[in-house]
């Protein structure tokens, strides 16, 4: 389990202007890389580019296979991008958690027992499963969105400020669950954060995104 993610000279341009300098790095199974940089430096866009959600130039490889070889939906199921502002389809939390298991790219099926277990570990009540997803608070939504990705057991997690709406207690629980997946499932994570301490807690590796034309750290 786990796969090596290689990003090679990846860049995104809007019109003729590159949003950030071409980025290259590797992420081994079980590694966490914190992605930091000033607002507007393109951190979220970099994650979206890795997930192949926006047109980009450069290469992304998963165990040396291209997204095209793997097939884009299958690739994205293995390299999941979790948006900072969670989005849900109309329906209950449980339906939202189960949703991705109905896609053709999925080979596993939804395990409600596991979902309940993980829900409690995030400090959420099991009763939440029956709630309509659009009635969730931002903090609840953020954790449900993370859980939705974790349940799919991806090889790589692309997390965009995954704890930005959480208080310290729930932040710690959430970080613990992420790290458990990283260590237990050999999943790797690229985490956008503004908090240097969070980067430390995730293991200390940091990738900096500067403004275009400015040398990277």
């Amino acid at each position, binding site marked *: 389990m786990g796969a090596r993610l290689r990003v090679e000279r990846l860049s995104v341009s809007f019109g003729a202007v590159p949003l950030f300098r071409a980025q290259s790095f590797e992420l081994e199974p079980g590694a966490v890389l914190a992605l930091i940089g000033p607002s507007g430096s393109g951190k979220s866009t970099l994650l979206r580019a890795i997930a*192949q959600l926006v047109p980009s130039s450069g290469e992304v490889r998963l165990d040396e296979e291209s997204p095209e070889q793997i097939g884009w*939906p299958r690739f994205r199921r293995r390299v999941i991008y979790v*948006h900072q502002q969670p989005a849900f389809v109309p329906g209950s939390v449980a339906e939202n958690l189960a949703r991705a298991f109905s*896609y053709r*790219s999925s080979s596993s099926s939804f395990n409600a027992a596991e979902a309940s277990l993980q829900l409690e570990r995030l400090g959420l009540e099991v009763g939440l499963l029956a709630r309509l997803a659009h009635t969730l608070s931002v903090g609840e939504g953020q954790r449900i969105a993370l859980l939705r990705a974790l349940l799919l057991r991806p090889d790589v997690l692309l997390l965009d400020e995954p704890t930005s709406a959480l208080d310290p207690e729930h932040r710690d629980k959430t970080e613990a669950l992420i790290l458990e997946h990283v260590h237990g499932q050999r999943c790797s994570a690229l985490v956008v954060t503004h908090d240097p301490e969070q980067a430390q807690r995730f293991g200390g590796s940091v990738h900096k995104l500067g403004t275009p034309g400015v040398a990277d750290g």
Partner: protein
Amino acid sequence: MAETGLISLGATDLLIAAALVAVAGAVSLLLGLRLERRLGLAALRTVVQLLLIGHVLRWVFALDEAWAVLGIMIVMIGAAGRAAIQRPSRTFTGIFAESFLTLLLTGLVTTLTVTHFVIGVQPWHEARYVIPLLGMVLGNTLTGISLSLDHLLEALDRDRSTVEMELAHGASRWEAAQPPVREAVRKGMIPIINSMMVVGIVSLPGMMTGQILAGADPLEAVKYQIVVMFMIAAGSAMGSIVIALFVYRSLFDKQHRLRHERIRTR
């Protein structure tokens, strides 16, 4: 009553009818609505446009040539294609071509099915049948297309984050696009279903009324109207689906991405 009971209208008759428009103008003057000029222009346009098309149709009927009928049909489809894309508040490059092709396909399929298999028109291009029937299909199908288009573009713009979330979790482009596409087709089909529900009770369709005025037996007129309603229903359904599929093809790429930047707000 004579079977061919059509009473021919002279210039005086039209002038009397024009007096009815003058009533509307008087209301505008009386209440200070300042609509007199626009009303006058609208009335004038009605007269000029209809007289023009009357002469064109008379010429085409007399000519009895397939190419002339086909030419008129293409012009009609082009005009309907433009009208269909006016209403949506969002647009994208190539929208007219897609609207045109949708109407070309659905208009020709439904009209020619009816003229060939139901009415049995000989030759196929008999303008007296083909042109009015195509006109009715286009007029209604363009509403369906317009609604379907409007909803789909709005949904893909407004619910972009939901669509991208689905893609980000391994949905194929079709899996991610399906909910908004289905809803768009539904929206496009609702008006014709509604009018089929109340036809004859709340409204007497113009074509049927026209046939009755022209001296046709009401039951004969009704049979034609039923055929026309079904033809329009098929046209609206097909049109709503085809345009939604065109939009889907234009806004999702082979890499299974939503190309949101292609949507422009007017």
